[in-house]
């Protein structure tokens, strides 16, 4: 009985079943690097959230003043005048949330 030649598909299946599974290092390395940068970023957050003064990223104080004005009943979206002016460039949801509705 003549020996039959394997078809290309059979050859691929044989290779797939005999090949050793490769360890995927790159995805875990990517996860590790991203995790290191994230941990570096997050490490300073508790102190920055609890800091009572204005943070290093500008305009925190201006927003807080506008919220205090809103809490006091000042129309912060009204046009500016010689007596008072609020920039109020953000949406109302921001100020309402900041003042506790």
């Amino acid at each position: 009985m003549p020996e039959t030649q394997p078809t290309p598909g059979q050859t691929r299946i044989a290779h797939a079943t005999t090949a050793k599974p490769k360890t995927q290092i790159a995805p875990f390395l990517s996860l590790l690097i991203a995790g290191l940068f994230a941990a570096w970023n997050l490490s300073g957050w508790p102190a920055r959230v609890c800091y009572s003064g204005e943070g290093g990223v500008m305009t925190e104080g201006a927003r807080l003043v506008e919220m205090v004005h809103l809490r006091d009943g000042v129309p912060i979206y009204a046009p500016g005048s010689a007596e008072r002016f609020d920039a109020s460039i953000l949406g109302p949801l921001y100020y309402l949330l900041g003042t506790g509705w």
Partner: protein
Amino acid sequence: MNPESPSYSTLRTVSVLATLATSAACGLLAFWLSGSWLAGATGALIWLGFPVVGAFGPTDRSDMPTLALAFAGLLVAYRYRRSRVGLGMAALLMVLSFFYKQQFVAAPVAVLLSLASEKKWRQLPGLPRSPAAAASWRSASSSSSSFVARTFCCISSLTM
């Protein structure tokens, strides 16, 4: 807020929670697209690793909550794009985002163009159902503009 001693802590906490929610949303989108939990975790951590996210996260700035709302709307629209209720929820989230800060318009534009490219203009909430509107949407969803819309959707979801 106590008017006698106003504090930054409320809005800083909101911003931190929004940053973490956006990180989870990044991971969820990566998981949906790849089917890999590893890709999802990496996507979430990559978001938290950006320096600008680290700088803006624990402040009372409006950027992170606005982005979280817009991104949530984009995810809802992506997941439930065949449902009018789902698209309505996505629109609601995007409107809330707009009322927080009037800046992050990439997500609404991306959803609009994506629906137009797939000829699903009838599912868009609040649009007029006139024949003229239908004709304009059909003309906007030719094959070339469909490619542009899909590309814009992908780019905007990655760069928001």
